[in-house]
């Protein structure tokens, strides 16, 4: 078998988390609604109805353009893409064809092994979503609730060379979208969908092979599976001496199979022309400036800063910038704590993210605050509590939402540093352990650890172990002469 090089380009459809649809005042999110209940004359394509473009859609699209380093078209146009299909009530989709809001740009990211990848963007355009259809026997059921939901379609250059790279691109894109707060980017809810253009060519061949487009890939896992299936299919065809034909293929995630779509559904000519019912989208300098000022620091920049300015190892910086809330939680906690960022990072990764994973929630939903975490670390530093108690305190603060110091007092978690109390226990332990005492005095000094353990057990871990050790040594040695 010859060696093949794979080339992949992705078209991602990103559902913007606006309140209303792209061109009407129906709510954008119909999750859980009965079919055809969240519709109006505009999105259901009734004769006479007219679109009115949503400001929040333009704003969020603009944020994405800036984050992707794209050039902004200060005047962009809406066009009609004409085709007849059951899920498209007007018979045309309002989209942006030759003058979209964003042109060019790129997304930089690292593969798991640290290898850097840059995927270039061809363009970003705003458009409305189609409705949902599903088969039931020989009929198709149409739900128009999703009609008109605002999307940004982002088209990449053919810069990916494996299903894994494509999947990682999507993971990073999803992270970015959530980070920017412009999309829930939940693939299960189809907030983020992608079509993949896949081609193969023998290694060393310059000319790209003919590409096939796989539509409707709706999870990261499906991206890997569908692309790998398609690569295998193309290799099989080529090995059998057949030509690859430029097909449009639909991925059925339930049946795990690829299906060729009818040529009518993939008619190449969409007869684009300007949507006469809408004005061009004119972005003023002021508007652009205000959006720019509201832009958060982006994940990769923040990761780099965590390394260079906060002195975190690359691994920590990458984990702590996986999402915006985590990075902000950490940074706030580190600021409050004020010293040794790595120590905060450890607590963050080991304890806070442990809770997040155990509970399957987001950092934003935690009750514990960044300053709570800083307080807990300080309590450990000051030996008010020991490390083990500190770790359980993180859970307790998160469960109750109470202040750590108050909780320590309330539950009596503090280390006992009163000499006389510890001395009393030490004397009792030593008195009850003549054999161990003799061995210790006989030179087996490592037994001091056993004595400390006994004291800690007696005091349920609340004794300061360092102090207990000192007292034990003096108690043991005091009786030496007897």
């Amino acid at each position, binding site marked *: 078998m010859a060696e093949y090089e794979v080339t992949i380009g992705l078209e991602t459809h990103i559902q913007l988390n606006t309140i209303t649809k792209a061109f009407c005042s129906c*709510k954008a999110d119909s999750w859980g609604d009965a079919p055809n209940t969240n519709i109006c004359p505009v999105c259901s394509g009734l004769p006479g109805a007219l679109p009115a473009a949503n400001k929040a859609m333009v704003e969020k699209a603009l944020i994405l353009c800036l984050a992707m380093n794209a050039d902004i078209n200060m005047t962009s146009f809406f066009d009609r893409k004409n085709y007849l299909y059951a899920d498209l009530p007007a018979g045309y989709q309002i989209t942006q064809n030759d003058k979209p809001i964003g042109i060019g740009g790129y997304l930089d990211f690292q593969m798991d092994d640290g290898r850097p990848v840059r995927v270039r963007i061809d363009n970003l355009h705003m458009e409305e979503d189609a409705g949902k259809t599903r088969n039931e026997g020989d009929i198709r059921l149409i739900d128009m609730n999703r009609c008109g939901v605002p999307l940004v379609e982002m088209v990449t250059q053919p810069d990916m060379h494996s299903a894994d790279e494509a999947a990682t691109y999507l993971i990073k894109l999803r992270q970015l979208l959530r980070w920017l707060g412009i999309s829930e980017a939940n693939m299960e809810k189809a907030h983020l969908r992608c079509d993949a253009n896949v081609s193969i060519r023998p290694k060393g061949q310059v000319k790209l092979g003919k590409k096939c487009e796989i539509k409707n890939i709706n999870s990261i896992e499906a991206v890997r599976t569908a692309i790998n299936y398609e690569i295998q299919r193309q290799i099989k065809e080529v090995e059998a001496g057949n030509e690859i034909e430029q097909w449009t293929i639909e991925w059925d995630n339930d049946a795990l199979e690829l299906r060729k779509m009818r040529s009518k559904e993939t008619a190449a000519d969409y007869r684009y022309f300007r949507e006469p019912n809408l004005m061009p989208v004119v972005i003023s300098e002021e508007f652009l400036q205000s959006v720019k000022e509201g832009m958060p620091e982006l994940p990769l920049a923040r990761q780099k800063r965590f390394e260079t300015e906060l002195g975190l190892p690359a691994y920590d910086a990458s984990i702590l910038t996986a999402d915006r809330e985590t990075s902000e939680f950490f940074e706030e906690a580190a600021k409050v704590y004020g010293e040794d960022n790595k120590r905060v990072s450890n607590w963050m990764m080991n304890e806070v993210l442990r809770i997040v994973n155990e509970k399957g929630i987001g950092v934003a939903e935690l009750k514990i605050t960044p300053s709570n975490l800083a307080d807990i670390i300080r309590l450990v530093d000051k030996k008010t509590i020991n490390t083990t108690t500190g770790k359980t305190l993180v859970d307790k603060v998160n469960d109750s939402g109470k202040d750590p110091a108050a909780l320590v007092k309330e539950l009596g978690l503090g280390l006992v540093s009163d000499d006389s109390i510890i001395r009393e226990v030490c004397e009792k332990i030593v008195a009850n352990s003549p054999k161990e005492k003799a061995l210790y005095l006989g030179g087996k000094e490592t037994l001091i650890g056993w004595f400390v353990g006994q004291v800690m057990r007696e005091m349920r871990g609340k004794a300061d172990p360092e102090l207990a050790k000192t007292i034990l040594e003096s108690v043991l040695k005091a009786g030496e002469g007897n």
Partner: protein
Amino acid sequence: MDDDKITKELFEEYVNVAEVELSSEEADSIYAKMNEQLKVIHQLLSIPHEAEYDPVIHGNPYPAEIRMPLREDVWIPFEHPEDILAAAPRTSDGYIVSPDVPHQKLV
């Protein structure tokens, strides 16, 4: 401008894309008329190509002061979505019903 002449084959293709069944009389007549109308369309080519004129969507200019601002993102539900559904010739459990579109499975 013969390159744009509408052949019978092309005409059939347009009818197919348009999804509109024609009687044979309609087909003959419309086919002839469209070719006739090409004359009108081709007058366009006599228009001097003057760069100073940008393509415009509307005749009227829309200076910023009269242009409608973008719609604010505020939810206003349509009062009677059920009336939209009620107009559909075939429905089932709140869905609009269409005949299926067959697919070809790839092995």
